[in-house]
């Protein structure tokens, strides 16, 4: 049954306002640090001021004397508390090196921010005061900060591993052996580019916050955490602490943004739980912003080398990619897998032959661990191919849009089996790109550019574009298995029609700003013929939603949302047998429209779902063998990723004298298939685009040579404000996904994937007359100005 065949109401596709908003707007919503937990002790973590040092001794006696301080623990004190180190769920290769990583460092610290000691106090102020009173004697070691330096193994971070290399993961796809090399030999055009994906700090507005509440008897423990992944956290904390899993309950209250940074199992979660059990008292912790910058994962951190071979028409004939990935000091939950999520996408939206040679070598550095940050691997890959194709167009001296057109996978080639063996579900790249060009007035801008960018001009106009794929909706479990990921990619949904015809939807997705309650209520309302306000959506508490795989990788709708639709179908199937029994007809003779079953051709013989729900509850008159109640649970494993796509364009004006970049226009044309709620889709695109613009223009985790983070507050790390970014024009095309009944694809990461290369390409386009061919990120005025000077110098 597809959504269009069974369309009983017209909820899907409407701009329904979010039910989440009133509590958030009035201050009623409870984030983790808002919870009132009587008797809770406050945890504070002493963090290493050195990127790399031996811990010679720790003296906590002065700290223990501070009023309110209950206990101070070092890594050695807690060594026997852990049943296992902090988990990494993605051992990408059999021989991947993974250093043991415990919540507190034991004899050596490996990044600035590494936990060294834990204080418990009756109030937060005392806990923080005590940190200053702990005396640690460090023996500083040479810090490894630079990726190429790390690769050289000159200084080794984890001695027991014998190398800084964690793994090398190759993906070589050749139609015939040696065909990549041959394609490069034969190529009419070749380009070879190097790009740096700077480290980014996710900076969700709510810092992490945790409260662990033990039961006084029986050993049960409830963990409240500002997390994206309550379900995964339940399994992982149980394993790491050696607590039976059924005694752990995890609740994610209102969560203030994640972007991947709350997709992890963190030291502080384990410390709160372990110490709450030890002291038999609730323990809570809230992160300061500067701690967040250092001790919550960072994103990106790659050096990319990409080579394209092309024939005389610019048709790409082979791609070679070499990546160095910055893991940071340790492997967090999915750290090593991030480059792999991009590994399949260096061919972009183009028709690439089986001549693809990718390899990623990932290294440890004495820096904060990296992990998934909005897009995770895919923004990096998209940046590389979409920048490289511009370089190829410059080499060929043709328009880059024209070059893209020659390489796009054509609409009629879908479903398209890519060089990698992955099947791209549906797409129409040209239509989206032409729509973007029209909205940008590309021809008009080009005309204006000719007029404006004359020799000696200081205000230079540029246009940039990106055509992207998102590869999301993580993920088919079998594909994850082939990538050595330790878990599946399914999602669960329970749909229950209550006796009074109100509906409960229980989802394994775990929202933190995406509006799942609104969107999921719309799916159930559409399917069951009830009003959205009659659908309650429950989530983010493992005692209510027992099974789930949470929210990341733009998976919630194409996996979790589809599971809800399927559970509705099962409820309808069951209701139909009851209706047939009560109407004394065959189930096949019934139709379900607008929330009512009726006999086809005899509309008078009808029963509304409300009557069946009540009948299923009383169970007075059910068919033989039919169980009471109207409820269904589905675990849905998607057959494929979902492949949203689109084209972004922007127009910039660069001041050649100051290096300042102003975005005059930003156009995002995205295709995520059927939109459940366009209001929410647009919001996801707006926010994603601005995070991509932020990478292009503003943000970078800057470290000095000793591994000190120089941008650890929001005063130094430049999250853009409203006046730093332009309005975003959003538009869409609609190419439904054929792999799920809703026709939906994810949209959470698309904006971020598309935006950074769009902006950088526009800047390079503006400055191409000055000989500028590349632009480092973030393209701050200083960087732009220096690049212009270097290009001018080169011309002399």
């Amino acid at each position, binding site marked *: 049954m597809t959504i269009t065949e069974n369309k009983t109401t017209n909820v899907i596709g409407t701009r329904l306002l979010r039910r989440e*908003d009133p509590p958030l707007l*009035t201050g009623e919503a409870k984030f983790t640090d808002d919870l009132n937990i009587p008797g809770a002790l406050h945890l504070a973590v002493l963090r290493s001021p050195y990127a790399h040092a031996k811990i010679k001794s720790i003296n906590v006696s002065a700290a223990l004397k501070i009023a309110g301080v209950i206990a101070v623990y070092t890594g050695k004190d807690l060594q026997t508390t852990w049943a296992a180190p902090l988990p990494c769920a993605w051992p990408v290769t059999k021989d991947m090196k993974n250093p043991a990583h415990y919540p507190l460092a034991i004899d050596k610290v490996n990044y600035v921010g590494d936990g060294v000691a834990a204080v418990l106090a009756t109030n937060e102020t005392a806990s923080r005061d005590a940190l200053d009173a702990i005396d640690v004697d460090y023996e500083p070691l040479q810090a490894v900060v630079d990726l190429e330096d790390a690769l050289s193994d000159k200084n080794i971070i984890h001695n027991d591993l014998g190398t800084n290399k964690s793994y090398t993961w190759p993906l070589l796809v050749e139609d015939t052996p040696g065909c990549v090399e041959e394609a490069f030999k034969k190529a009419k055009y070749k380009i070879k580019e190097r790009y740096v994906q700077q480290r980014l700090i996710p900076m969700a507005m709510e*810092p992490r916050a945790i409260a662990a509440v033990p039961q006084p008897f029986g050993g049960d423990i409830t963990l409240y955490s500002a997390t994206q992944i309550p379900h995964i956290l339940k399994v992982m904390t149980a394993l790491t602490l050696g607590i039976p899993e059924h005694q752990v309950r995890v609740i994610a209250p209102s969560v*203030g*943004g994640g972007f991947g940074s709350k997709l992890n199992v963190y030291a502080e979660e384990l410390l709160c739980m372990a110490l709450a059990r030890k002291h038999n008292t609730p323990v809570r912790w809230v992160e300061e912003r500067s701690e967040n910058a250092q001790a919550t994962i960072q994103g990106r951190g790659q050096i990319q080398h990409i080579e394209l071979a092309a024939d005389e028409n610019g048709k790409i004939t082979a791609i070679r990619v070499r990546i160095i990935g910055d893991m940071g000091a340790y492997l967090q939950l999915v750290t090593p897998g991030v480059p792999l999520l991009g590994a399949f996408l260096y061919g972009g939206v183009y028709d690439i032959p089986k001549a693809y040679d990718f390899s990623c070598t990932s290294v440890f550095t004495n820096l904060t661990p990296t992990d998934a940050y909005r897009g995770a691997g895919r923004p990096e890959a998209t940046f590389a191919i979409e920048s490289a194709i511009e370089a190829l167009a410059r080499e060929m001296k043709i328009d880059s849009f024209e070059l893209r057109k020659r390489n796009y996978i054509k609409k009629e080639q879908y479903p398209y089996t890519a060089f990698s063996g992955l099947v791209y579900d549906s797409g129409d790249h040209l239509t989206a790109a032409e729509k973007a060009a029209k909205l940008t007035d590309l021809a008009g801008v080009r005309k204006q550019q000719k007029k404006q960018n004359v020799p000696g001009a200081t205000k230079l106009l540029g246009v940039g574009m990106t055509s992207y794929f998102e590869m999301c909706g993580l993920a088919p479990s079998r594909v994850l298995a082939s990538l050595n990921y330790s878990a599946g990619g399914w999602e669960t949904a329970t749909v229950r029609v209550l006796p009074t015809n109100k509906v409960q939807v229980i989802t394994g997705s775990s929202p933190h700003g995406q509006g799942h309650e609104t969107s999921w209520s719309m799916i159930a309302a559409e399917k069951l013929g009830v009003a959205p306000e009659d659908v309650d959506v429950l989530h983010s508490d493992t005692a209510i939603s027992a099974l789930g795989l949470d929210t990341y990788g733009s998976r919630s709708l194409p996996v979790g949302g589809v599971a809800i639709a399927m559970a509705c179908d099962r409820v309808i199937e069951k209701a139909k047998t009851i209706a047939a029994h009560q109407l004394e007809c065959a189930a096949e003779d019934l139709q379900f429209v607008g929330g009512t079953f009726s006999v086809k051709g005899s509309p008078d013989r009808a029963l509304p779902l409300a009557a069946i729900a009540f009948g299923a509850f009383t169970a007075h008159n059910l068919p033989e063998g039919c169980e009471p109640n109207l409820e269904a649970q589905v675990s849905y494993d998607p057959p494929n990723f979902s492949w949203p796509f689109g084209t972004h364009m922007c127009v910039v004006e660069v001041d050649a004298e100051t290096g300042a970049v102003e975005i005059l226009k930003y156009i995002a044309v995205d295709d995520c298939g059927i939109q459940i709620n366009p209001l929410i889709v647009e*919001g996801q695109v707006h926010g994603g685009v601005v995070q991509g613009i932020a990478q292009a223009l503003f943000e970078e985790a800057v470290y000095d040579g000793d591994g000190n983070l120089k941008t650890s507050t*929001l005063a130094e790390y430049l999250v853009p404000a409203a006046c730093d970014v332009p*309005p975003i024009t959003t538009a869409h095309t609609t190419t439904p996904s054929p792999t799920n009944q809703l026709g939906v694809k994810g949209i959470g990461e698309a904006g971020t994937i598309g935006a950074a290369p769009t902006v950088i390409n526009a800047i390079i386009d503006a400055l191409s007359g000055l000989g500028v061919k590349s632009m480092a990120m973030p393209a701050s005025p200083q960087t732009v100005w220096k690049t212009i000077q270097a290009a001018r110098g080169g011309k002399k």
Partner: protein
Amino acid sequence: MKVSITVNGKEHHGDVEPRTLLVHYIREVLGLTGTNVGCDSSSCGACTIHMNGEAVKSCTILAVQADGSNVTTIEGLAKDGVMHPMQTAFMENHGLQCGYCTPGMVMAAVGLLNENPKPTEEQVRVGLEGNLCRCTGYHNIVKSVLAAAGSK
């Protein structure tokens, strides 16, 4: 030190450590947790409240400095169960996603319109410079404020 602060129309008397920030007094002593803390450098604006009618960041003020003043927090904005027009405008224009910056953003926006009832888009963007949002890209926040001002 003894303080007396009127919050959302109700007078509160307390004894606070001199170093207590107003935001901590509001959250921890009064239990009004709608005002959020997002940074430690007065950069994010999540803790914006009104003090004597002006939007201020409550993390930049000591509780003792607020002695004798009249404070409105996000909890005091809706009246008799009806949201303030700015809150309604944020809802109608999808001006929030995770909602963490929202109380501060709404208080800042109300303060902005108090000073400039009919701002241009540019004036809204500049006026909200001190409030960071990581979810919305500001597009719908700006739209919300303009809608509340009746400018669009």
